[in-house]
């Protein structure tokens, strides 16, 4: 008989089981996407071959066009399916009778919550990445086919029109900034959703849990925005794209970098959201541990 268990090992088990629970549905969409890409690739090969008759090439072109449209549709649906699972599984595994199993596992509420954030966060990011990749790749391909011009060369022409500003470093910095901001905003969104569902299952609210979770969601989202605006007012930390192709960071007022003919990206809201995410994580975990009532 063993009384104690390794917490890290149990956390890995949580990750494994949360992944398995979600993968059985979400993975079907990835498989569909891979099959569609496969069809697209095969049709492309057939279409590009000289030794195959015209009729077959025309058929392959039609199938390829359908696969392009379906790929974009499936990758778009993937985002919604994943989001549905982010919400549904969180509710189902913790606040339905399944909660009797989840909350009596030898793990902490931080671990229960952390596992879901990691697994579903991973799925969400992957779904956005799949959508972006599918859209950009296939749209670029279609543009090449229709316009006969590479999108990248189009971008290069646009950049030439702007002269040397912005530099490649600045473009890369901008892209990194956008990805990080997207990640932080997405994290905030999930943390607000989880917080709302959890709060709506405390005894006083659980009779009207759906309405309560919607109201709590909007109130919390507004509080997030208000705090981030306030923090930006107090300390406006900005990444500035200077005309001399360099990047600099500093605390500037809005007028300073706009009037000074500088291009700048605000960093403070990202930090504010990150801090709020951490606070929300522990607040949700605390409510889950202390206040949630399983029916």
């Amino acid at each position, binding site marked *: *008989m*063993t*009384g*104690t*268990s390794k*917490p890290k090992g*149990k956390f890995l*088990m949580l990750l*494994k*089981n949360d992944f398995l*629970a979600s993968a*059985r549905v979400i993975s079907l969409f990835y498989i569909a996407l891979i099959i569609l890409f496969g069809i697209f690739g095969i049709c492309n090969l057939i279409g590009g071959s000289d030794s195959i008759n015209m009729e077959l090439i025309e058929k392959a072109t039609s199938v390829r066009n359908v696969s392009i449209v379906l790929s974009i549709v499936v990758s778009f649906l993937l985002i919604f399916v994943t989001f549905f699972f982010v919400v549904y599984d969180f509710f*189902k*595994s913790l606040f339905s*009778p*399944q*909660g*009797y*199993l989840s*909350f*009596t*596992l*030898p*793990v*902490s509420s931080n671990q229960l919550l952390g596992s879901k954030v990691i697994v579903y966060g991973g799925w969400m990011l992957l779904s956005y990445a799949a959508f972006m990749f599918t859209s950009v790749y296939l749209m670029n391909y279609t543009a090449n086919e229709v316009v006969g011009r590479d999108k990248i060369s189009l971008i290069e022409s646009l950049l030439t029109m702007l002269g040397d500003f912005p530099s490649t470093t600045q473009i890369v910095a901008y892209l990194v900034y956008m990805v990080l901001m997207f990640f932080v905003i997405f994290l905030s969104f999930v943390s607000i959703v989880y917080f709302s569902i959890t709060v709506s299952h405390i*005894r*006083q609210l659980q009779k009207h849990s759906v309405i309560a979770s919607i109201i709590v969601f909007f109130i919390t989202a507004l509080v997030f925005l208000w705090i981030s605006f306030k923090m930006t007012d107090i300390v406006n930390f900005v990444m500035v794209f200077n005309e001399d192709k360099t990047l600099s960071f500093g605390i500037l007022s809005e007028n300073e970098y706009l009037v000074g003919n500088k291009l700048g990206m605000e960093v403070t809201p990202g930090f504010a959201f990150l801090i709020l995410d951490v606070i929300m994580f522990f607040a949700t975990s605390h409510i889950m*541990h*202390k*206040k949630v*009532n*399983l029916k």
Partner: protein
Amino acid sequence: MSQIISVRNLSKSYGKHQVLSDVSFDFEGGQIIGLLGPNGSGKTSLIKILTGLINDYSGEVLIDGNKPGKVSKSLVAFLPEKTYLASWMNADDAVNYIADFYDDFDKVKAMHMMDVFQLPHKQKVKTMSKGMQEKLQLLLVMCRNAKLYILDEPMGGVDPAARDFILETILKNRPEGSTILMSTHLIQDVEEIFDSILMIGRGSLLMKDTVANITKSGKTINDIFKEVFSVDWNF
């Protein structure tokens, strides 16, 4: 023998409604304890506190010397009244899930019991009958070598034949030296297996004694239960 359950001045309320009021008791390990009380007496709240499902209470609760938490949860095998398995799981998935989290789970025994219980390994929980789901959950609990088994109405809503099956499974698979705390309304069916009784009513502890002491007078536990709680039904 050390105290497997120790409760001191336990109180729990939902707003103004007091469900447990200053309850204190201890139990040594190795017994089968009957947790008795009518609906709304506070049994479920007490079970939820012991299993770590409710954490906002006043007083002290210790399971084998540990406050309800990760360690106590690894010592307790809990069978709730509800079907708690995810609908997408099949019987094998459920066994693997429990095996992942509890080091004391005997997977080989579970696979064997599944065959004995005639539970199809690959059948999804959602397509199982209520009886099959109950068998599976009972199997998952009794295949653990736990120190304390907390069974909430394990025979509630089942026919007499199923009751015998459930009772036999519990007694046959209970590890030596382990403790069982079982809440039930069906006192007549199970009173002969209890070593001790804990009777709760209106949020208070009404009786805590050994069955040997209670039955000295020639009365059964069922008789005592009726005596204690008949006042609730006499107007």
